[in-house]
């Protein structure tokens, strides 16, 4: 294997990894606030992308994306109020099961509102044939958009959760809801807010990856599985780690493809997920003590 080819595999891994990473970030927001894994996260991505694709017929691309993010954000809030709030005192596990049901509902609703066909947003820069060349290898400029948007989202979330009152309030709810309530935090709205935030970020992610992956109503679940694997790999609740884990998994898959039949690629994510769950359930980038504290 010559050098440009190795770089090419690396770039391929980064392309795929950046998609995994941006999906994983959405999982972390809701988990950080509620301890729930939202299995409808993949559907939020597709809803966002579908809305943007429809709006793009009448408004410029940037406006279509902004509007799609806003609409999906509101939708995320409504879903929480209608479906999850009535079961607010249920155990975390039960809430997770509700999100699985929601994902199916949203998927079927999308099939009725749109159709079964493949849709896509145009490439943000250039066209489907544009490439950027480094070290004799090539990649699509859209990959830079995906990575760039992931970085901005992670940076934004870090600032939001660390330094704003609202962000801290959301984290407080996750740590100890009773104590947070006693401090005057309206815990129910914090949960709603977390769903809105992750729906909005999911929609943005869905739009950014749409030129690369294309968008079809039932694509959410496979994307969510990879995103979930990456979120676990990085350590749930840690968005920065999720991005690194996403790129790692993408690279791992690319080099597995380079050496073995590509059919084995799909097994990689599952094996990695199992290994992490057995050996290091807190994730690669979270210190064990912290993980233990969280679990308690």
């Amino acid at each position: 294997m010559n050098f440009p080819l190795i770089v090419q595999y690396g770039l391929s891994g980064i392309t795929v990894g950046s998609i995994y990473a941006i999906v994983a970030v959405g999982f972390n927001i809701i988990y950080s606030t509620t301890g729930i894994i939202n299995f409808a996260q993949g559907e939020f991505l597709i809803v966002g992308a579908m809305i943007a694709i429809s709006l793009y017929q009448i408004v410029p691309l940037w406006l279509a994306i902004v509007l799609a993010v806003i609409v999906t954000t509101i939708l995320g809030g409504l879903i929480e109020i209608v479906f999850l709030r009535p079961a607010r005192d249920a155990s975390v596990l039960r809430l997770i099961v509700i999100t699985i049901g929601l994902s199916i509902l949203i998927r079927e609703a999308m099939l009725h509102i749109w159709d079964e066909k493949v849709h896509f947003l145009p490439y943000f820069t250039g066209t489907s044939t544009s490439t950027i060349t480094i070290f004799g290898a090539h990649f699509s400029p859209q990959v830079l958009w995906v990575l760039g948007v992931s970085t901005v989202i992670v940076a934004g979330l870090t600032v939001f959760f660390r330094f704003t009152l609202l962000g801290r309030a959301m984290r407080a709810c996750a740590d100890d809801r009773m104590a947070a309530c006693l401090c005057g935090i309206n815990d129910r709205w914090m949960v709603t807010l977390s769903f809105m935030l992750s729906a909005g970020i999911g929609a943005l992610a869905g739009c950014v990856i749409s030129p690369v992956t294309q968008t079809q109503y039932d694509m959410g679940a496979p994307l969510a599985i990879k995103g979930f694997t990456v979120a676990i790999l990085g350590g749930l609740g840690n968005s920065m780690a999720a991005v690194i884990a996403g790129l790692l998994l993408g690279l791992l898959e690319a080099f597995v493809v380079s050496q073995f039949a590509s059919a084995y690629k799909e097994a990689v994510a599952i094996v990695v997920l199992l290994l992490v769950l057995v050996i290091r359930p807190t994730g690669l980038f979270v210190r064990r003590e912290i993980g233990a504290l969280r679990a308690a």
Partner: protein
Amino acid sequence: MGARCVRILGTLVIALALNGTGCKKAPETPAPTKAPATQTPAAPIKVGAIFAVTGPAANLGAPEQKTAEMFVEQINKEGGIAGHKVTLIVKDSGSVPGTALSLAKQLIDEEKVLAIIGPSTSGETMAIKDTCQEGKTILLSCAAAETIVNPLASYVFKTPQKDSDAARRIYETLKDMGITKVGVISSSDGFGNAGAAQLAKLAPEYGMTIAIAETYAATETDLTGVLTKLKGQDVKAVIDWTITPAQSLVAKNMKQIGLDVPLFQSHGFGNIKYVEAGGEAANGTIFPCGRLLVAEVLPGTHPQKQVLLKYKQDYESRYKEDASTFGGHAYDAILILREAIKKAGSVEPEKVRAAIETLQGVVGTGGVFNFTATDHNGLNKDAFEMLTVENGKFAVYTKK
């Protein structure tokens, strides 16, 4: 606690039920097919249909469902077949072979249909082949794989062109271009596996070397990894064999990683949606296909021209979307059934089945069908035309 528990479970059950029972655009039987109870000279013929209206093969199943409903409505408007009205029962398999199997059993055992149109994909067809044979129910598959009619099952037929013929046409074109070293990629489903097997089998006959053969998941969202592997083998052309949306990615990803060799697709590429999704990158793609996509430019003397133009105009004016070859496969299936019932002068399964085997010169959208007792497809490789994509549109491929 109890009430809440019930509520949660209820939400879930509703969600699951909606998913399972085909709330997916469940196609209604067209109203005119129900003959008034007062005057029933001939009992209606029950025809089942299993299409992948949703799921990864939805690009096939959806136009097939629309076509079947349109054609049956036309038949009933014209007085049915030999005095019998046709009742069409459409089921959505969601592109899942297991679902197709249970739907087939339902159609055979409960609905007692004369024939089943579909399924859309080869994997689903193979899943129900034996069931239809044992249930003595005529199966007119809309899927391509050779294995559907070879080995032969007396009740099983198919309307799309053979995949071995598609492979032959691709190899002939490659030979003309002076290319002998190719890379093959295919989706890991029934259609992809069958195509890859045909390509491997026929390669020596045409002096082709398959430098590398790889498969990818039907739900794949990026193929740069596997294409890099082909690039590493220095292939002179890429053959991609699938019916999934991933085929639009192949063209894009090849350009993006700088793999500048001709791209050949299978006859599964015959839907303009895939070209649109591929954008600029799809230009120059070469693929074998039925003549539906180039009906307008066929010479006026071509036997298929009238049939193709009529189907295309009917479909496009009714559904406001481009006709695809897949819908044409469903059209051909119903056409063959109609001709066979007319010829048999009976609606007994065994007689209709035997009549299909004697049909000659039936002009359909996929080609001119000539069935025999051993050929349950009735088409040869002339049913394919080599097409290419020019400026985002299909055109007849001409040697450069």
